[in-house]
C-alpha cells in the first residue's frame, strides 16, 4: 500500500502534508510518495525548501519520503492519475481549495476530480487547525442513513489508529424544519431507536477490527434539520481533532454548491475536516 500526497507547494498543502505523514506512519511500510505535478504557479525549483521541510517532518515521524515529479497529462489530475495508475492499495491524500467563497471549497478543484475518479482511495483534508499537526486523537465520523463505504473507512481509520483514542460515530436524523418543530416525544424516541440500531451495526463492525481495539468507540444520535450544523457543534463540543466524512457518489456527481452541507462543514467547522471516498476496488 502507498500513501501518496498530492502536493502543489502551497502552505495549505504543507499542512495537509502533516496528515499524509501521520497516515503513512500508521502503515507498516512507513513510506510516503510526495507527488508534484509541475505548474507555472509552483515550479519544482522553488519548492526545494518546502519539500525538505516535509522530509524533516517525515523523518521525525519515522517515515521515508520520496518526491516524485509527475508530468502534466490533460491537466494536473490527469498527471496524478496517470502516475499512480489504477492502484487499489493507494491512498491519495490531497487538500481542498484554500478559500471557499462563492465557488465553494470543492467544485471544479483537482481534489473534486480526484474524489470523482475511482482508480484509488482518496482522502481530502481541510486544515483549519495547523497546530494539530495531523495528529488525530478524537475523531468524529458523521454517518448517514446508508452503509458507509466500509472498507475505505476502515482503511483510513486503521492508518490513524496509532494516535486515535476516541472515535465517535454521529448519526443525524434529518427532518424538514416544520416537521422537526412539530415532532412529538414518542416519535422522536422511535427515530432515535431506529438510528441507534443502525449505528450499533456499524459500531459492531468497527469493534471487530483488531487494529481498532485500543480505540474508545462512542455513538450519538441527533435529530435535526441540518446535519452539517450538528456535526460542527458536536465536533466543537467533543474537541474533535478531525471530522471525517464519506463523500457519497451522488453528492460528487451533482457537485458542491455554496449552501451544500459539505461546504458548510468545510467553511464553518472548528475542527479539521477529511472527506474520503473509496476507489472502485475498495467499497465503491
Amino acid at each position: 500500500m502507498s500513501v501518496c500526497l498530492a502536493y502543489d507547494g502551497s502552505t495549505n498543502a504543507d499542512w495537509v502534508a502533516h496528515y499524509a505523514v501521520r497516515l503513512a506512519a500508521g502503515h507498516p511500510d512507513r513510506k510516503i510518495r510526495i507527488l508534484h505535478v509541475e505548474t507555472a504557479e509552483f515550479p519544482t525549483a522553488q519548492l526545494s525548501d518546502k519539500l525538505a521541510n516535509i522530509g524533516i517532518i517525515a523523518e521525525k515521524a519515522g517515515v521515508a519520503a520520496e518526491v516524485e515529479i509527475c508530468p502534466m497529462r490533460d491537466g494536473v489530475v490527469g498527471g496524478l492519475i496517470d502516475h499512480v495508475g489504477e492502484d487499489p492499495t493507494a491512498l491519495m491524500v490531497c487538500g481542498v481549495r484554500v478559500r471557499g467563497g462563492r465557488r465553494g471549497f470543492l467544485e471544479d478543484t483537482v481534489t473534486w476530480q480526484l474524489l470523482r475518479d475511482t482508480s484509488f482511495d482518496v482522502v481530502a483534508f481541510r486544515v483549519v487547525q495547523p497546530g494539530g499537526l495531523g495528529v488525530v486523537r478524537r475523531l468524529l465520523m458523521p454517518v448517514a442513513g446508508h452503509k458507509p463505504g466500509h472498507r475505505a473507512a476502515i482503511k483510513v481509520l486503521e492508518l490513524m489508529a496509532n494516535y486515535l483514542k476516541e472515535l465517535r460515530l454521529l448519526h443525524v436524523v434529518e427532518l424538514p424544519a416544520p416537521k422537526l418543530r412539530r415532532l412529538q416525544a414518542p416519535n422522536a424516541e422511535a427515530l432515535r431507536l431506529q438510528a441507534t440500531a443502525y449505528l450499533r451495526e456499524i459500531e459492531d463492525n468497527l469493534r471487530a477490527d483488531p487494529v481498532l481495539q485500543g480505540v474508545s468507540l462512542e455513538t450519538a444520535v441527533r435529530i435535526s434539520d441540518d446535519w452539517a450544523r450538528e456535526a460542527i457543534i458536536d465536533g466543537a463540543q467533543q474537541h474533535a481533532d478531525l471530522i471525517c466524512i464519506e463523500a457519497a457518489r451522488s453528492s460528487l456527481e451533482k457537485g458542491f454548491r455554496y449552501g451544500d452541507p459539505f461546504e458548510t462543514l468545510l467553511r464553518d467547522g472548528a475542527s479539521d475536516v477529511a472527506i474520503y471516498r473509496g476507489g472502485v476496488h475498495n467499497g465503491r
Partner: protein
Amino acid sequence: MAGSIQNLPTEDVFTYLDSRADGLKRAEVEGRLQELGRNTLEAPNKLWWLKSLGRQFTNFFTILLNISAAICFVAHYLQPGESMDILGFALLGVSILNALFSFFQEYRAERAMEELKKFLPQRVMAVRAGEEAEVPAEELVPGDVIVLREGDRVPADVRLVECRDLMVNNAPLTGESIPISLTADAVDRELTESNNLAFAGCAILRGSGRGVVFATGFRSQFGRIAMLSRDIQRTVSPLERETAHMVRVLTVIAVAMGLTFFVYGVATGRSLWVNLVFMMGIIVANVPEGLLPTFTLSLAMGSLRMARRNVLVKSLNAVEALGAVHVICTDKTGTLTMNRLSVTRVEPETSSQWNLMEAALAACDLDVVEGGWSGDPLDEAVAVAYRDAGKDSQAVLDAQTTRFPFDVEKRRAAAVANIGGAPAFAVKGAWESLRPLLAADEAALSGADAKVEALAADGFRVIAVAARRLADGEAVDDQGAAEHDLELAGFLGLEDPIRPEVPGAVAQCHTAGIGTIMITGDHPVTAEAIARQAGMIDAAVAPGQATLTGQDLAKLSERQLVGKLRDGVRVFARATPEQKMKIVNALHQMDRVVAVTGDGVNDAPALKAADVGIAMGRDGTDVAREAAQVVLLDDNFASIVAGIEEGRTIFANIQKFTNYVLVSNGPEILPYLLYMLFPVPLALTVIQILSIDLGTDIIPSMALGQEKPDAQTMQEPPRDREQGLLTLPLIAHSYGFLGLIEAAFSLSLFFWVLFDGGWQWGQEMASNDTLYRSATGIALSSILLMQIGNLFGRRSRTGSGIDMDAFRNPLILIGITFEAIFSWALLYVPAVNTVLGTAPVDTTIYLIAWLGVPLIFGLDYLRKLVFRAIRS
C-alpha cells in the same frame, strides 16, 4: 501524547508551524489570512437578523392576520364606509407588534457574542519579518510570533517558545481563577491542560514571553466556546410549541370554515361581496386575535412577579418554560451553599505543643484593608475564626517576618512568625503536600490519614497545619530549605455552609416531581456531603452510589450516561463546565425539560443548550448572563424553585384565559352560520367581533393571567409534555357548552328585539336600519355581560370561582367594570353607536341581558358540581 503541538521541543515548533523566530513575512501573513480567515469571533452571516426578522413575519399566525388585513383593505376599496380599513389597520398592527416582539427577543441573544469578544484584545505585539510591531489582533495567523507581557489578554492560542516567569489566569476556559505558571518546554499532557500553551481570552498575570500562534478565531479553544454559544439552537420552549399548535388548529378551523361557506355562498347565488365579508367574518370570529398579545402581556407581568422573587427573566418564553422543568442541574458553590468559607472544625481542639489556630494564621498571606483583611478566602476564614475566638488576629499577622505565599504546584503556603512568643516556621496546605515533610513515624502518619479521611467524609475541606521552632538566629530565605522536621499541629475543617433555605427548596422540588442534580468542580466527598445535607440524595443511598466524577463521566457514552442517570446518579463532582453539555444532552435523550445554572464564560454553551439557562447575577460573568434566559439575582437555589412555582402558575393561568377567550368565539361564529343558512340578518358585524376580541376580553384575560398560585401548584408533578394548551375537553367546554349558552342567549335577545320591532322572517335589513342596529347592539351587549359570569367561572377548575381573592385582584374588578360600562355605552352612547353600528334598546331588555351573568355562571357551576359528584 507525543506528536501534538505541546509535545514538540521548542526548536521544532517553528518547523512544524512553517514559521521562523523572526516571524512571518507580510506575504505569508496575507496568504494564511486568506486561507483561514481573520482572528475574530464575527458571525459569518452578517445578515442573520434579516433572516430572523423574516421568520417572525412568516409564521402561521402572522400570515393569517396579514391575509385578514388584506381582505379588509380589499373590502374597503370595493365598498367604502364600512370601517373595514380601520379593521385592517388593527389586524396589521397586532401582527407587526407580535413579530417585532419575537424578533427583539432573538436579537438580544446575540449579545452573548459581544460579551465574548471583549475577552480578546484589539492590538497585539507581533514579530514580523524580524521586526517587533503592534498589529491588529484580528490579523494574526497561525505561525505568527507574538510577544506576551503582564496585563495582556492572549489574542489566540499560542505555543510558547520563550517564557520569563509567565503566569496566566485561564478562568475563561476552565472557570477557575487559579494562577498557572507557564513554561516553554515540551510537556506530555492533554492540550487544555498543557502549561506551555497560552489560550485566547486568558489574561497574563505576570512575566513575559514569546509564542507562536497555532489556532485563531473560532478555531481557538475560546473560539469553540463562542461558536457553541452562537450555533447551539435554543430548544423550542413548551409554550412556543403549544402556542404554535393552537394557532395551527384554530387557523385550520377558521380557514376551512370560511372557505366552505364562501363556496356555499357562491353556489347559492349570493353576491361576491357578501360572500367575501362573510368569509372574513367567519375567519375573524374563529381567530382569537387578542389571545397572543394577551399571552405576551401575561408573560411580561409574570416576569415582573418573578423579578420580585429574585428571578430576572430575559426571554418571556422562559417564564413558562421554568414551570415545565423536570430537572434542575445546579452548581454547588454559591447556589446551594453560601460561598463563604468558615472554619467549623479544629482537630485536635487542644494541643500542648502548638496552638493550632495561631500556627495556621501565622502561615496566612493577608493584607489589612478597611473593615478586615484581603487575601485568599481560606486565609480570611482563618483570621475571622481566630478573631471570633476573642484573640488578636492582627497581632499574629504583624509578627510575620517572612511570607511564602500559596504555591499552586506545591499546594501549600508558609511563613516565619512568632508563635506562642517564640520564632517558628509555619506551613499550611493540602495534607498530601505536607505529609512527606513531617518528622513523624508511620503509625502517626496513618492515624493522621484516617483523621483526614473522616473529616473529608463529613464534607469538610481539610487544611493541614505544621510548624517547626526555629533555632536562635536561624534565617529562612528559602521555603524549600526550611521545610524539614515539621511537627503536625493539626487539621482545620472548613466548610462552605449550605444555605438554610436549600433543604426546604429541594424537598419542595421532590414533592413537585422535579429532579435535582449537582454539577461541581469540587471533591466528590465534599460534593456528596452537601448533596446529602440538601436532601438531593436519599439517606438510604450508600455513599458514592449517587456520585460520579468528571473522569468517570468522560469515559461514559451518552447512552451509558442515560443509564447512570436512570440508576439515580445525582452528583457530578470534579466535573468541568464543558461536561454540563453532555449531561444536558443525556437528559434531553430522556425527554426531560432541563434547567441548568452557570456562572463562567465556558458555561455559556450549556446555558444555551438547556431548555432554561440560569445565570448567576451576583457572581456570574457577563457572558453567562447574556447566554442565559434567566438571571438569579441572589444566586440562590431556592429562588429557582420560586421561579418554577411562578412558571407553573402562569401556565395554569394561560389555560384559564385561553378557555375564557374561546368561549366568546361561539356567539361570534353562530350568527354567521345562521346568516348563511337561513334568511336572517347578521347578528354581529366584524367590527363588533373585534371589539370583543381586541377590546373587552383583554383586561379580564390579563386578570386571569394574574391569578396567584394555588396550594396544589407545587404538589403535582410537571405537566405532561404532550398536554397541549388546546385540549379536546377545553375545545368542547369552550365552544360546545359555554359558547353555545352565550350564543343562544345573545341570539334570543337579538331576535326578540327584531320581532318586537316588527321584523318578519326572511325580511332583509339594511345595515343602517335602526332596528337592526338595536338588535346587533343587544346581542353584543349580552355577550359582554355573560363574559363576566364566564370570568368568575374560569378562576377555578372545580370551585365556584367567587372568593375574596377575586376582589383582591384589581384587574378582575377593572375588567368587570369595563365590560359592564361598555355593555351599556355601546347601546346608549351615540359616539360608540356610530363606531360599532349599534343603537339603543328598551332599558328592560338591557336589564334582561344582565340575567346572562348568573345564567352562564350558574349553569357552569352546575356542570362542575355534576362532574365533582361523578368523580367522587
